[in-house]
């Protein structure tokens, strides 16, 4: 049976004919183009020209088929990769240091909390002891300090001149608002230019009703205030 070949025009040949040598060309189109080229001198010449050009293109392809980027490019990219890797190391070190510092801060805070709690418990115990006994003298060194702590006084008492250490069990704190100059009556030196200032004063009163020690209630130290 004779194979029927579809005839094509010169315009169609220009589209299909130059694909004749391509491996992915359709067999029917190749046959039709070959048939047309055999009967049309102009299209045959076109096909010849194209085949010559195709040969030149193949030469160009062969000439440059092993072209590749120069080795220096690979070196540059490797360097970029290394730079980025090295840049990442300090970042991770910073992360480690940050976490380390945070952990240390938490640890210190925990220890501080424990310490503070321990001190609070001691205070409670001392207060209980003081409340039950209330017998220690405020003028006897460490015992005095303990008493002041039990009374939640942050400042220290200063013994008044000529007062005697008391061995009495019951002592009281007397809170007084007075002019600073009045402290001079208890034998304390007072700066004249500040004598008119009103200050809050605590007196530690012995069992005999005589003030034995004094402290100012403001933040300033008694010594500096009195000067």
């Amino acid at each position: 049976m004779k194979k029927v070949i579809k005839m094509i025009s010169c315009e169609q040949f220009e589209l299909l004919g130059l694909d004749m040598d391509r491996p992915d060309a359709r067999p029917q189109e190749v046959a039709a183009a070959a048939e047309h080229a055999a009967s049309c001198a102009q299209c045959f010449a076109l096909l010849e020209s194209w085949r010559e050009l195709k040969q030149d293109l193949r030469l160009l392809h062969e000439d440059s088929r092993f072209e590749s980027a120069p080795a220096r490019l690979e070196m540059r990219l490797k360097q970029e990769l290394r730079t980025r890797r090295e840049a990442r190391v300090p970042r991770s070190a910073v992360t480690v240091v940050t976490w380390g510092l945070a952990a240390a801060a938490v640890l210190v805070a925990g220890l501080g909390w424990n310490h503070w709690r321990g001190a609070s418990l001691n205070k409670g115990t001392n207060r209980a002891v003081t409340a039950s006994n209330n017998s220690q003298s405020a003028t006897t060194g460490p015992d005095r300090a303990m008493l002041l702590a039990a009374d939640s006084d942050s400042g220290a008492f200063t013994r008044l001149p000529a007062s005697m250490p008391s061995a009495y069990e019951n002592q009281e704190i007397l809170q007084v608002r007075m002019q600073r100059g009045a402290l001079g009556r208890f034998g304390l030196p007072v700066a004249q230019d500040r004598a008119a200032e009103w200050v809050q004063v605590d007196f530690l009163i012995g069992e005999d009703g005589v003030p034995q020690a004094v402290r100012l209630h403001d933040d300033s130290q008694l010594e500096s205030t009195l000067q």
Partner: protein
Amino acid sequence: MKILDEKEPALLKRAVRGDEQAFLVLYRKHQATLYRYALRMTGSPWAAEEVVQEVFLLLIREPQKFQPDRGELGAFLFGVTRNRVMKHLERRPREDSLDEINANGNAWKEPQDPLTPMMIAEKSERIEQVRDAVLELPAEFREAVVLCELEEMSYEEAARACGCPVGTIRSRLHRGRALLLAKLELLRDAPRRASAGAK
């Protein structure tokens, strides 16, 4: 498992973490194709090198731009290369002359084949003429010629690479071929079609 057997996304992950070997496997696999395409499109070894460098720097710096579910790494790299080449061509249509290309010395090497000096010179001249003619084509037609004739891609492959229908590629190739023929016939002073038509 050998590094060469690993899939490209896995290699890329390793490369981004700083694994030089993984990066080199990827680079060596793709660089030549990309470089040749860039070289044939720009006609400048310098520009081709710059384009390939930009493509791989992008891969190192912004690897997240490659999404394996969208396609192969090769296709992604080719797409990036193509964009860079087109930008280059828009920026400076063609500044590098063939003399510059030859002066660079790292492109268009003389083929080593057993021909007489006369034949070698003639062949070399033909290659230069074709190369010049290809480089003078408008970018779209040049790309079709480069992919379908020089890189020997099928129409489907070329269409995928350019992100356009097969018909568009065929049409561009047709126009590109016609322009090439016209240029070369003018250059060689051999208007065969006319003479054949007069027969």
